[in-house]
C-alpha cells in the first residue's frame, strides 16, 4: 500500500516541481519537494518503505530532468542514507533531524549534480554554484521542510497506525 502510494505522490510532486516550484526561485536556487518528501518519509519512525520511495522519486525526476540519467537518484539515495543514519541518533527531536537532514541532503544532492555535470563536460564554477544555487536552495528547503514534515508525519500515521499493546 505504502509503496503503491509512492507513485501518485511522487508523480504529483514531480508535476508541482516542474510547473510551480521551479518557477519560484530565490536567486537561482529552488526548493526540492521530492527531496524533502523523501527525507521526511525516511525520518518517520515506523516507515520501512523509504528506499522504495527514494527510487521511485529518483527515477521520476531523472526522467523529467536533463541531468545525466540516474544522477538525481544517486543524490536522493545519499540523502535517504543520511536520514536513516540520523534517525537512529536524533529520533527524539524529529523536527531537528528534519532540518539537519535537509541541510545535509541538499548539499549531497547538489554536490552529486555538480560532480556529474563536471564529468559530463559542463564544468560550473564551484563558488558560483554555492552562492547562486546551493545556499538559496538551502534556505528555501529549510523553510519548506517543516510543513512538509508535518504533512508526511500525518500520512505516515495514517498508513502505519500505532499498535497498542494490551
Amino acid at each position, binding site marked *: 500500500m505504502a509503496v503503491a502510494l509512492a507513485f501518485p505522490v511522487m508523480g504529483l510532486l514531480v508535476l508541482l*516541481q516542474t*510547473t510551480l516550484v521551479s518557477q519560484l526561485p530565490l536567486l*537561482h536556487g*529552488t526548493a526540492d519537494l521530492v527531496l524533502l518528501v523523501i527525507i521526511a518519509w525516511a525520518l518517520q519512525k515506523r516507515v520501512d518503505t523509504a528506499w522504495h520511495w527514494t527510487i521511485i522519486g529518483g527515477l521520476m525526476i531523472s526522467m523529467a*530532468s536533463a*541531468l545525466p540519467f540516474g544522477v*538525481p537518484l544517486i543524490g536522493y539515495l545519499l540523502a535517504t542514507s543520511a536520514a536513516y543514519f540520523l534517525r537512529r541518533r536524533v529520533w527524539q527531536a524529529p523536527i531537528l533531524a528534519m532540518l539537519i537532514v535537509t541541510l545535509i541532503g541538499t548539499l549531497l544532492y547538489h554536490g552529486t549534480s555538480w560532480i556529474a555535470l563536471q564529468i559530463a563536460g559542463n564544468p560550473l564554477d564551484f563558488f*558560483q554554484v554555492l552562492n547562486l*544555487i546551493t545556499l538559496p536552495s538551502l534556505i528555501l528547503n529549510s523553510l519548506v521542510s517543516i510543513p512538509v514534515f508535518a504533512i508526511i508525519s500525518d500520512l505516515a500515521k495514517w498508513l502505519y497506525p500505532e499498535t497498542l499493546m494490551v
Partner: protein
Amino acid sequence: MKSPKLNLQTVVLVLIGAGLIALALGGYLTPVSRLIITPFVNAQTWLTQRYTAVRDTLTAPQDITRLRQRNLELEAEYSRLQAQIIELQQQLSETRILSALVDFARASPENQYQAAAVIGRDPSPFLYYVIINRGSDDGIRRGMPVVTQQGLVGRVTAVTAGAARVQLITDPASVVNVRVEPSRADAVLKGELSGDITIDMIPQGADIKTGNLVLTSGLGGGYPTNVLIGQIASIRSRDQDLFQQGILQPVVDFSRLEIVLVITNFKPVDITPLIPAPGVP
C-alpha cells in the same frame, strides 16, 4: 319666527367657519392644530409601526428564504462571470501571443513552424531547460531550433511522443555561433549559471559597439542563419586578450516563456566527425 332664528344660527356658524378659515389661513391656528394633531400623528405612527412589525414578522421568513436563495444564485452567477472574465483574459493574452507568432511566421515564409506551449521547467536548478507540449507525434525532432516572435530561444534536446525538452540559450552548456551586425564579426554565445549570456571570441579588430545586433551565423549547422538573439549590452576589449568579450541582452524574456515556435524544416548538421581529435594528424 323660526326662520329668522335659523338664519341667525346659520349666519353665526358661517361667520365662525369663515373666521376659523381666515385664522387658519393667517397661520393663527397652527399652535392649536399642532396641539391637536401631534398626539394623533404619534398615535398613528405607533400604530403603523406595530402593524408593520407584526406584518414583517408574519411575512419575513418567506422573504428571507427567497432573498437568501436569490443571493446564492447571484453569488454563483458572480463567481461564474468572474471565472469567465479570467478565462477570457487568458484567451486574449494567448491570442495576442499567437497573433504575434503568426506575424513572425509570415515574415519568414521559408521556415515551417510548430507552435508549442511551455508546460514546465527542468526540476534541477543547475540547468536552464523548458518542457513543451509537442513531441515526435507532432513532427518535433532532436536538434530543431526553437524561437518566439522576438528571437531565438534554444533547441530541442530530447523528444517523447507528446512532449519535448528544450535547452535554452541561457543554459551554461549552450553554445551558439553568432554574427554581430553591422560589423559582421563572427563570435560565440555562451550561457551562464547566473542566467546571463556572454559573447566571446570576437576578433580584436572588429568594431563592436554597445547596441549592435547579434544574430545566428549558421556556422556549425546547429541553428539556421539570421535569427535575432539580442543586442550587445557591454563589451570588453583589452590589448593583452586575443578576443573581445561582452554581455548580451537577449530579446526574449526567458522568465516569461509561454508559447514558442519550433522550426520543423530545419535539419541540424552534426559536424562532430569532421572535427579532428586532439593529437590526430
